[in-house]
């Protein structure tokens, strides 16, 4: 029932099933093969993003058979997508051993290229790099950068340290150099509790709390001066909910007017920095239930450039194209489905 043309759209958040230990073996050297086998490194699923649980599986998408063929049949073909960006939300982000994490990230990237990107030219992927091991993360970016099908670097909304910290800057330098946005995906590696009052009782609370992770990551990147240092860098917030962002823009700009002496390298109002550097995928969309108010909520961003289409296939958020809320003009819709995505991911044009 979609009232708009999806042909040529680009889907910025599509999830292949996470690879198991056996899937990664062909891409590991002998040492890591033995480690992964004897120490039983198999399922790497985040407690805060448990993909095998019910909320992550639409009942109608369960099924056997080749997952790529299913994706083609359920998503790529019917929507006529030009591209879909694969995001593996991996437990590699949460492993404590920085070298094991490095091995898993590299193998997962190889697996993505081999089992997915090589088999369907519409597919693109986010690269996994070990934020626990910054030097190795930069090596992995440099090793992989020549393959333009990798279009961004993935991390989480809730991490070990706020993402603006200088320890991560070499990753941003390599990302900026190669035109790779930093994709911040919903989820936590549980290094820190997801709330000021510790861990939640319920999964639904972790879900509800994700904007707290996204907002503080954006605040950190601004306050630490990452966008001052890397003016070309883009950040994409994936599965953030969208409508929480204006509140951060207003609050941070107001505080910056009063407190800028603390961060003299932040030369512009945070709201302006956010409009330049921060993008959000459209699904899930935390919106009011009528078209007029949806339009108002999006107006608060003061920009039509910031929202990028995503389906979140095959998670339960995915509702086909009905997910894009009512209240979007044809012009806004076109930007979300195509123009904004191309402007964000420079490597899609290569």
């Amino acid at each position, binding site marked *: 029932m979609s009232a708009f043309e999806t042909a040529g759209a680009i889907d910025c958040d599509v999830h292949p099933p996470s690879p198991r230990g056996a899937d990664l073996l062909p891409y590991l050297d002998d040492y890591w093969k033995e480690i992964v086998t004897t120490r039983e490194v198999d399922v790497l699923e985040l407690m805060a993003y448990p993909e095998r649980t019910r909320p992550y599986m639409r009942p109608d998408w369960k099924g056997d058979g080749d997952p790529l063929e299913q994706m083609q049949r359920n998503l790529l073909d019917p929507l006529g997508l030009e591209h879909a960006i694969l995001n593996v939300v991996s437990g590699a982000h949460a492993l404590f051993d920085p070298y094991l994490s490095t091995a898993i990230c590299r193998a997962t990237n190889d697996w993505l290229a081999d089992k997915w990107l090589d088999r369907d030219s519409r597919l693109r992927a986010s690269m996994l790099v070990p934020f626990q091991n910054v030097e190795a993360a930069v090596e992995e970016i440099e090793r992989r950068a020549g393959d333009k099908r990798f279009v961004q670097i993935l991390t989480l909304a809730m*991490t*070990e340290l706020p993402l603006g910290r200088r320890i991560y800057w070499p990753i941003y330098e390599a990302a900026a150099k190669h035109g790779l946005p930093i994709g911040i995906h919903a989820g936590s590696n549980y290094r820190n509790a997801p709330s000021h009052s510790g861990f939640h009782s319920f999964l639904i609370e972790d879900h509800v709390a994700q904007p707290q992770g996204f907002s503080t990551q954006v*605040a950190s990147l601004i306050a630490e001066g990452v966008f001052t240092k890397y003016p070309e860098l883009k950040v994409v917030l994936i599965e953030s909910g969208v409508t929480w962002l*204006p509140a951060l823009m207003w609050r941070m700009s107001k505080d910056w007017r009063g*407190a800028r002496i*603390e961060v003299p390298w932040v030369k512009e109002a945070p709201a302006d920095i956010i409009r330049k550097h921060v993008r959000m995928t459209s699904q899930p969309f935390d919106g009011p239930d009528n078209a007029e108010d949806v339009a*108002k909520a999006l107006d608060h961003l003061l920009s039509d450039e910031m929202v990028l289409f995503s389906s979140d296939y095959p998670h339960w958020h995915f509702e086909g194209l009905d997910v894009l809320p009512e209240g979007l003009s044809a012009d806004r819709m076109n930007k979300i489905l195509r123009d904004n995505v191309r402007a964000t991911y420079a490597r899609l044009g290569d």
Partner: protein
Amino acid sequence: METPVLERPQESAQTLGVVDCDIHPAFSRPDQLLDYLPERWKAHMRDYAVRTANPLLGTLPYPRLTPGNGMRRDSWPPNGGPPASDLAFLQEQLLDEHNIDFGILQPLAAGSMAFNQELGAALCAALNDWQIDKWAGPEPRLRASICIPQEDVKASLAEIDRCVADGRFVQIAFPPRTLEPCGRSRYWPIYEAAEHYGLPIGLHTSAFGYRPNTPSGWTSFYLEEHFAASNSLQTVLSSMILEGVFEQFPKLKVVLVEGGFSWLPSLVWRLDREWKRMRSEVPHVKRPPSEYVRENFWYTTQPIEEPEVNRHLLDILRWIGPDRLMFSTDYPHWDFDDPRFAFKVPLTPTERSAIFRDTAIELFGLK
């Protein structure tokens, strides 16, 4: 015929006094609270100070931007002492100047956050006695908050029982950065007492807590820390609803203080969306979260939201409902809101009187 009906409330709203839901009284000298402590705790304070999760003893870990840890530069009383420590000057600079009929005291001293639980309970009791003795006693426009050591529920109930007969206490106060999410059942006896006595619970954002101030660890800067403080209020709201507090205590009233409010519409849309999908995980939550939000929560307005386009504030006000918002100044802090200028959008007379007066009068039973 209609014109006078529209005009009359507008005029009366402008002449009626304001209710200020967030005033921070201060000690006139650093050891003033000792006067209200028994000898045992006086000696303890002298010998060991108050140990809390603040990594620095006696200093805020994120230095504030104005003298006095973030005070209005004009708020030092002419007779000496720190800002908001002198009743006469507070009356002159705040209550008289801004036509404030009622002001709710929100003491920020660390009773609720003391690691030593017995000391925490003693500090809360001292704070409560001090509020009455120095402030709400001599100045009837000021009303007090029953500060409780929320992690020690038994001591909290005893303190509520000790204070509740004194009608000058109009709410029960503790910080939102509780040791566990505050919807957990360990805190329910406090809510039972609050509901029983008809006292709202007031949760004021706090500058430090037991846990990092972001889900990714500690921020480097005040600029990030100040914003992140409002996240603790979001956790309070979500946790209390999703743990089923309001199914058990449907008349409980919760006031979220000094955390802004423009984050609320998006959070409520999110709560409802997730609840529709995952309600089987929380079967004790019988109704859409937005319904509890509409019935059980209120918000103070300072620091007022300042959208880049002023009229966007009206969207937020109407999504939340002007009957849930209560004006506050945060006197004497640097980001004080002046009731004459805080709202840069045109409010209807009904909205204005609700926000500046009526809602707080009714919620706190002020008379």
